[in-house]
């Protein structure tokens, strides 16, 4: 069928009136042509979907969720592009002319859709940089969640209280991202305050023994006590122990109560913030109320 192109049709149809264009589209030959193009698009969508799912199934065993996402999209978009080109050709569009017009259109769209374009480009950078992948647990600013997908415009996260969060790619690219599951093991930090009277070596031995007995805490890297600058309440220390990243909540649940119990059994209480208030009698005040002199105990 050698029907006029849509561009020519728009130019010639009854001096450009909409009714002329509509009349031309409703001609039986033209309608069949457009129907076939539509059918091509539907078939293309089906083929793309089937092929992408098949490709994912083929590579399922030896690919990460991120790679599967890329495979699925790569296959689907390539096939859809082929079918879209064929459908446009079939519908009488002259692709050369369209591409020329697309250049002008892109500039116009670029201004109109700056945010979207920025998100798309940011998405490409995010995929290329591989700071995180689908399935990783990340912290973006104060938000912690599991990455569900990295899409053209946004990254979707599921938080641990089961909220679905969409974050624009551009915002993610600019934000500070902490990938909590990038490395297999993680450190549990337990900050503590220890009275100055307590021997830190004995304190450390007690806690190390607890960590060694906790099955989910790793023997190596070895648990240890980090001593920080003291504060007015006592020694400021951090007890650190390692565990498998996936076990961190359970390991912390195992470790911390056992630490508290062991310190209690060993008669090593933790320091509590304290204030000592000294009451001083001011002789000039006679029987008036005493003066309060407050200060922290060393």
């Amino acid at each position, binding site marked *: 069928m050698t029907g006029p192109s849509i561009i020519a049709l728009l130019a010639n149809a009854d001096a450009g009136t909409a009714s002329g264009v509509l009349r031309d589209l409703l001609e039986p030959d033209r309608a069949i042509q457009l129907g076939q193009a539509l059918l091509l698009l539907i078939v293309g969508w089906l083929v793309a979907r089937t092929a992408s799912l098949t490709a994912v199934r083929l590579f399922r065993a030896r690919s990460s969720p991120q790679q599967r996402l890329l495979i699925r999209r790569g296959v689907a978009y390539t096939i859809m592009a082929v079918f879209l080109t064929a459908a446009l050709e079939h519908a009488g569009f002259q692709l050369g002319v369209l591409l020329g017009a697309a250049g002008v259109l892109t500039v116009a769209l670029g201004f109109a859709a700056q945010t979207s374009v920025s998100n798309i480009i940011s998405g490409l950078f995010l995929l290329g940089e591989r700071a995180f992948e689908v399935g990783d647990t990340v912290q973006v600013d104060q938000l912690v969640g599991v990455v569900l997908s990295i899409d053209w415009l946004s990254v979707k996260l599921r938080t641990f209280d089961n909220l679905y969060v969409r974050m624009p790619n551009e915002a993610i690219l600019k934000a500070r991202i902490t990938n909590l599951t990038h490395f*297999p*093991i993680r450190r549990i930090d337990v900050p503590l305050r220890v009275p100055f009277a307590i021997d830190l070596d004995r304190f450390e031995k007690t806690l190390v023994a607890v960590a060694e007995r*906790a*099955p*989910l805490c*790793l*023997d190596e*890297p070895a648990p240890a006590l980090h001593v920080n600058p003291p504060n007015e309440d006592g020694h400021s220390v951090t007890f650190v122990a390692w565990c*498998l990243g996936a076990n961190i909540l359970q390991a912390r649940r195992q470790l911390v109560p056992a630490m508290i119990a062991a310190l209690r059994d060993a008669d090593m209480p933790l320091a509590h913030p304290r204030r000592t208030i000294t009451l001083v009698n001011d002789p000039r005040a006679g029987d008036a109320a005493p003066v309060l002199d407050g200060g922290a105990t060393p």
Partner: protein
Amino acid sequence: MSDAPRGRWFGPLALDVGCATVRQIGPLRLRVARRVGEWHVSWQHQPDDETADATPQPIEPHPPAPDAAVPPLGDDATVHRFVGAAGRNGSPLALCPAGADRTVVGRPRQPFLLMPGASHSMFLSTALWVQLRLGVDGTLLHEIPTRRPSDTWFGPDTQRGQLAYASRTAARLDPANLPPLVERAITEVRLTNRADDAMMLERIHLPIPTLALFADADDFLWTSTLIAIRHSDRTTVDVTFDDGPPSAARDPRRVAPARQEGESGSLSRMLHRLLG
């Protein structure tokens, strides 16, 4: 029970419907009841200290008896019901031993140095797992560690390596000095130091999942033997395992295959893979 060898806790459970029994496998207390249409299995771990030589306990504190006559385990016991697996003519349930499901990093309690040119065997033991298997084809229903070992990381840094179990060992040189523990399997490691300096053994990485299990005459369990040869370049260690029965065990017989196929010939070649 009197005729049974003293280390035997594994094998088929001869239980009629409505009966139960209890097995004590080190710190693991396991109660198995056969009820109409189901195997009712409960277990609990009693507190213990791996570093202490535990006092041996009777393996079968409650021989098979009517279910109601065998006291249940405490409230903290874990219970599993395997339904549809034990009709009146149902398949028998067997307790089978297995080695750890991950590699084990053994750390001698004291520094262990093997002199230049010396060759010696070292014996250490690792915790066993109890597998519940059903029927003649041995379908695996569940498995329980006799003692949950502590996790550890074995690798050059916190980014690369693998998760393993940790085990403190006395690294005994004579197997007769090992305490007779039914819940552990003994591994003989034949060490040879061909280098001209002493070989310091701070930790040893045992590929337990690739080792088969053997029972000795008393039904205590052994794994295949590991052979580690440190070469004169000081950095290379060839590690192989002898798949045959352990020579130090008395009348050994194979009771369980390895969980995984081992890399034949050489398990690992670099020193850091085996030794810390």
